[in-house]
């Protein structure tokens, strides 16, 4: 049963979602190539092999996606808590033995690859929380144990790293999945009021616990002119890149902001800016359309899924893609703070690509098996 490849699996396979994310990933590789190219032909040195690595990772990710599709998602339901426990252990491990980058400890070096546990943890969280919610009725109240196990403990471990992007992601997923599971409008309203009142207090605590570079980012977002450490520079350069693309863009390999290094993190967090500079308004709209199709298709999968777990898991995965998309493009467009999250399927980064493909595999898995009988 576990590794059954039957005709129905092939027949019902969600080629649309698969096609969309492959397209986005290929656009991503082309953009990485452009962003990291040498600004002048024949300049000494050679182009960094980021795009080649990303191609390799795309192959691995596609294989992983198919592997995930082949496994009946029931197994993910059954093993969800075990994944979650492993995820928590890895988060603790990264705090003790992690590799630091930009003042944050997020990586575990496995020798051949630097592994970021929070990538894995997000998926485990969606599985486990969905499994948990299947058996609970949240209509009236949220149990304290739930808040601790799926809220405070993981959030605490993430904030210690600190990893603002993942922290925002976890909180959002917690809220979204709770709402989708049927949290009453009364509680939602109450929660909104409570959080609005508590923001100044929590905000203070949060501010104090932030590292300097994070504080700077927030300050720079509020007022790029103050710019204590040049973070506003990032936002400005990103806006310049996008804005200068105008309607039809400067043309592929004609962008200047990325290769000339005015734009920082050009092939990772600011890849959308590089793309938008070269392809203009038309290209940006096309890319957005591809993403919107992924989201709407995913929501449709959630709607049509055959059981509660898969409905919630699908919603969680789409939400994850959507929030990353929103935070990343919002940052590039200068309407959201600089929070270092990658653009799903496009940004350079092997583990992120892999984990997003695995998540997409799960989504396809759910859609593909929606007609199967649940046991």
């Amino acid at each position, binding site marked *: 049963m576990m590794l059954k490849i039957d005709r129905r699996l092939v027949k019902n396979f969600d080629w649309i979602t698969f096609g969309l994310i492959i397209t986005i990933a290929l656009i991503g590789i082309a953009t990485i190539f452009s962003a990291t190219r040498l*600004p*002048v032909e024949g*300049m000494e040195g050679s182009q960094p092999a980021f795009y080649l690595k990303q191609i390799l990772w795309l192959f691995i990710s596609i294989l992983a996606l198919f592997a995930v599709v082949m496994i009946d998602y029931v197994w993910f339901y059954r093993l969800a808590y075990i994944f979650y426990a492993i995820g928590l252990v890895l988060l603790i491990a990264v705090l003790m033995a992690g590799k630091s980058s930009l003042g944050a400890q997020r990586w575990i070096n496995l020798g051949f690859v630097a592994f970021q546990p929070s990538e894995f943890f997000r998926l485990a969280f969606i599985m486990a929380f969905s499994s948990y919610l299947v058996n609970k009725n949240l209509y009236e109240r949220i149990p304290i144990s739930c808040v601790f196990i799926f809220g405070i403990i993981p959030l605490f471990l993430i904030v210690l790293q600190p990893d603002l992007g993942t922290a925002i992601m976890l909180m959002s997923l917690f809220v979204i999945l709770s*709402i*989708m599971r*049927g949290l009453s409008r009364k509680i939602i309203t109450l929660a909104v009021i409570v959080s609005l009142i508590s923001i100044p207090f929590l905000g203070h605590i949060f501010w104090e616990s932030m590292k300097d570079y994070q504080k700077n980012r927030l300050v720079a977002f509020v007022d790029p002119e103050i*710019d204590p450490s*040049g973070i506003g*520079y990032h936002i400005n*350069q990103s*806006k*310049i*890149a*996008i*804005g*200068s*693309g*105008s*309607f039809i863009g400067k043309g592929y390999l004609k962008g*200047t*902001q990325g290769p*000339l*290094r*005015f734009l920082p993190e050009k092939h990772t967090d600011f890849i959308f800016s590089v793309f*938008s*500079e070269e392809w*203009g*308004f038309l290209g*940006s*709209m096309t890319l*957005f359309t591809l993403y*919107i199709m992924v*989201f*709407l298709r995913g*929501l449709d999968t*959630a*709607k049509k899924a055959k059981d509660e777990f898969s*409905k919630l898991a699908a*919603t969680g995965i*789409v*939400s994850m893609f*959507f929030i990353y998309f*929103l935070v990343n*493009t*919002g940052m590039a*467009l*200068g*309407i959201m703070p600089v929070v270092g999250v990658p653009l799903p399927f496009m940004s350079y980064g092997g583990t992120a690509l892999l984990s997003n493909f695995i998540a997409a595999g799960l989504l396809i898995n759910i859609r593909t098996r929606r007609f199967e009988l649940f046991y």
Partner: protein
Amino acid sequence: MFEKRINIAVWVVIMVFVLLSIRIWYLQIISGEKYRMISENNRLRIIKTPAPRGIIFDRNNIPLVKNIPVFSVSINPENIAAIDRESLAEMLGIPVEEITEKFDKKDNSSFVPIKLKQGLGLVEVSKIEARKSDFPGLFVETEIGREYIYGKTGGHVIGYLGKITPEQIKNPDLKNFPPDALIGQWGIEALYDAALRGIPGERIIEVDAIGRELRLIQHRQAVKGDDITLSIDINIQHAVEKSFGTKAGALVAIKPSTGEVLALESLPSFDPNLFASGVMSDDWRTLIEDKKTPMLNRALQSQYPPGSTFKIITAIAALEEKVITPEARVNCSGGISYGKWTFGCWKKGGHGSVNLHKALVESCDVYFYEVGKRLGIDKIHKYATALGLGEPTGVSLYPIKERSGLIPSTIWKKEKRKQQWYLGETYNAAIGQGYVTATPVQMTVMLAAVLNGGNVYSPSFIKDATPRMLKSLKLSEETRRLVADALSGVVNETGGTARSAQSSITMIGGKTGTAQVVSKGKEAGGKFNDHAWFIAYAPTENPEIAMTVFVEHGGHGGSAAAPIAKKAIEAYFKKPKPKSELKTDDAKN
């Protein structure tokens, strides 16, 4: 329930899509032009390459200036946020406040480099180059500065370069020049700046975020400025400077036939090299505050009574107006009486019976009192003015303005002093004292006009420039010859007042003069001598050079000023001529 909330989620996704699209629309369509320009500015840098300045030569094609590299250090404005100001200040050896002030200036453009320090030495430059990586965006520029080969000699004429002033920036010709470019600010450098400065070149390059040059987009070569050949003879300047010694004064030499200035010295002089790097150094302050006023151009700005040199004018007026014949004699008994005053002759015992020639040669005052009386002040005024005195000669040495001197007249006295004119004042004027004042350059222009038959040329500093005639007095040839003979006699005849100017290589003519320093001299207990004048020319046949020597507190013109003139003239005729061509004293006598 679930489906309902999924539908809401669909709407949320669509709303976000619309929101982001509006934002992209705003950035790319509404502000697209603006951002495209910023992105061009981001990647393109315009680097002005200074044009080599034209070289200034003297009349014998000896270069007077050299172009030398001057180093300065600048920073790209987009890098200033990341700069540690303290350590930058320390490395450049300037106060941190100066850096802060330059960095935070309101009108800093986002892509014009900010100049931090000019006039760097080679050691400083290598220090900066070595630490460049600590200060992204910092770079050393080479500008073209000037070395003035002869230093102080001719400093007043050649002038120097300085930073463009805020007023000069408004000049449309200078719009291609960086705001702190060096342009001519004094003398010839300023006067002929438009010709000398050339056209700066422009390199448009593509740079990356740390300012590294990636490729050349466009290059326009700088056009070298025009060379200028001055009418100045640096040998004369040099000789003059040497023979003045520590005395203050001026010398102006002109080619009588054209008005070309052969030499113009004002002493003490200043060394333009002190200004060469555009830095207003302590040396400069010292110059400005110096009691000997080296920045004062005495050739253009010292106006004093010309003394007996003015007798040339009185003599010409008398001959032209025929109030006297050349042979007519006046008896000099050492003075004449006028009311209760006595107007003395400088020679206590008197000259006896003198005609025009002797009166000029021996500078008899009484003869000219008499002639002046016959002429009246307004006739003297007419000829003095016609020969270029009493008004500017048009000589120009930016930023120095020449003074116009004064030739009195009855009208002038009535208008300015509200008084009538007295005969005693005519006596004074006739011998170049009293109200009469002139500058060394005016006296030279006057002498040149007398020698060339009456053409008053505005002095010019360019060799073979078209002469600019201010006016012309048709002087009769007889008058010209009579005066010229007398001036030759002043130097070459027994009894002449300037025998010290006799030269073995050319025949010199001239006239001495003394400007009395009355008040100062008496009150300071004779501490100050009178100012000495000597106007001279050579050779006596077909003069090539006419000059005025003015020595402040030099005493008598014959002893203080004439030897300087001789040295200057000999420097001009530095190739000694065969002895046979020279007339000797005896032959003349």
